[in-house]
Each structure stands twice: as C-alpha cells, then as structure tokens.
C-alpha cells in the first residue's frame, strides 16, 4: 500500500459516492450537491495524475460555474408541489444495462496489456502545457471561442421572452 494508493481509494470512493448520490437522490438539490462532491473528488484525482492545471480548471469551471448554473436552473424550474417521481419506468432495465456495460469494460481493462507504470514521472510544466496549447492547438483554441460565442447567443435567443409573451 503506497500513499498514492491510499489517496486514490479515498478520492475514488468520494467520486463514486457523489456519482451514486447524483443519480439516486430523491431530492434534486441533494443530487446537485452530490455532483459537487464527485467533481471535487475528480479534481483531486487529476492532482494524483500530475495534471495540476486541469485540477484548477475543474474546480473553477465545474465546481464553480457549472454547478451554480445547474442549481440556478433547478430553482427556476420549480416542479409541482408534493413528492415528484424523479425516475421513469425503465429504471430496472437501465440498471441492468449500466451494470452489464461496467462488467464488459472491467473485463476488457483487466485482460488488456498495459505498459508498466513509470517510476519517476516528470512533472509536466505549466508553461510547457501553455506552449503546446497556444502553438500546436491555436486553431482549435480559436474555434472554441466561436463555439462559446454561438452558445452565448443561442442561450440568449432561446431564453428571451417572445413577442406578446408575459415577461
């Protein structure tokens, strides 16, 4: 048992707990808060994988912005009073399907040959990642800004009240 393994099990357990809470909770707000737990645990896993920059991005964008927006949408769409059924009728089949997929994936992962873990991995420098991002990946980077622009304009067009509609 190395230290890394201990931390992996703690963070992985938190991520699994949060994921199960997200899909199984009976209260929508509890589901959103479980998602926050899962996202922060995944940020910790990124640190174990030497991806510090990704961990920061994860906490800022997922832990901050996306969760806020999801909670916001939950507050905007108040469902009817009284207990609401959150799951649909095909729940049992979904469980069987997801379980089967997990079994297949696990068998495939265990059977495949993976290269041995590196003993002394090099810490990827922050500036090296930036250089790769802005030099090799310059065009996808600009395309990402266009995607964001289209998403922003689309969200404004969709969520603005139409003519004659009560504001």
């Amino acid at each position, binding site marked *: 048992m190395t230290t890394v393994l201990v931390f992996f099990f703690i963070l992985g357990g938190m991520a699994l707990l949060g994921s199960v809470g997200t899909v199984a909770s009976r209260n929508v707000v509890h589901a959103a808060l479980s998602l926050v737990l899962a996202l922060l645990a995944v940020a910790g896993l990124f640190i174990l994988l030497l991806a510090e920059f990704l961990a920061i991005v994860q906490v800022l964008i997922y832990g901050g912005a996306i969760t806020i927006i999801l909670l916001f949408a939950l507050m905007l769409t108040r469902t009817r009073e009284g207990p609401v059924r959150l799951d649909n009728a095909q729940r049992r089949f979904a469980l069987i399907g997801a379980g089967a997929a997990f079994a297949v994936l696990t068998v495939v992962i265990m059977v495949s040959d993976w290269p041995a873990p590196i003993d002394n991995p090099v810490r990827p420098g922050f500036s090296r990642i930036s250089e790769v991002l802005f030099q090799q*990946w310059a065009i996808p980077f600009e395309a990402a800004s266009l995607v964001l622009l289209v998403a922003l304009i689309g969200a404004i067009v969709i969520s603005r009240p139409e003519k004659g509609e009560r504001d």
Partner: protein
Amino acid sequence: MINIEYYLVLSAAIFCIGVYGVLARRNAILILMSIELMLQAVNINLIAFSTYLIPKGELEEHLGFIFAIFVITIAAAEVGLALGIILRLYRNRASVNVDEVNLMKW
C-alpha cells in the same frame, strides 16, 4: 505511480453510473447532470492515458491534457445551451420531465 488499471476501472464505474442516470431519470436537469458525470469519466481516462502512455518529447506530448481542456470548455457551452432549452421547455409546457414532452412523438 500506481497501475493505470485503477484509474480505468474507476472511470468505467463513473461512466456507467452516468449512463444509468441518463436512462433512469425523468427530470431533464438531472439527465444533464448525469451527462456531466460521463464527461468526467472521459476526462479521467484522457488524462490517465496522457500521463502513463505518451513518452515525453513526442509530437503528442500532453495531448490528453489539451483534449481534457477542450472537453471542459465544450461541456460548459453545452450546459449553458441545454439549460436554455430546458428553461424554454419549462416556460411552454410547465414541466421539465422528458417523458411529458411528446408533442412530436408519432
């Protein structure tokens, strides 16, 4: 460093929990959250492969990191747009349950 299989099995587990959530939930916002879980699983996989498999100094250096950054960016755009559509749906039908949206169902 621990074996890569640990990360892959964890990522498979999170992905399958997300698949279950997408299939079993009725509320469109909860379905969106399950999709976020699936994207998280994909990101763990990408970064694990990038750290373990690609030798340094090659052309594909940090490929998984860059992919993960773009996945997060596109996921944020997707959440913004999808929630816009869901709010529009709530405004028109007073419901966010996907099985009650059957206007175009044949």
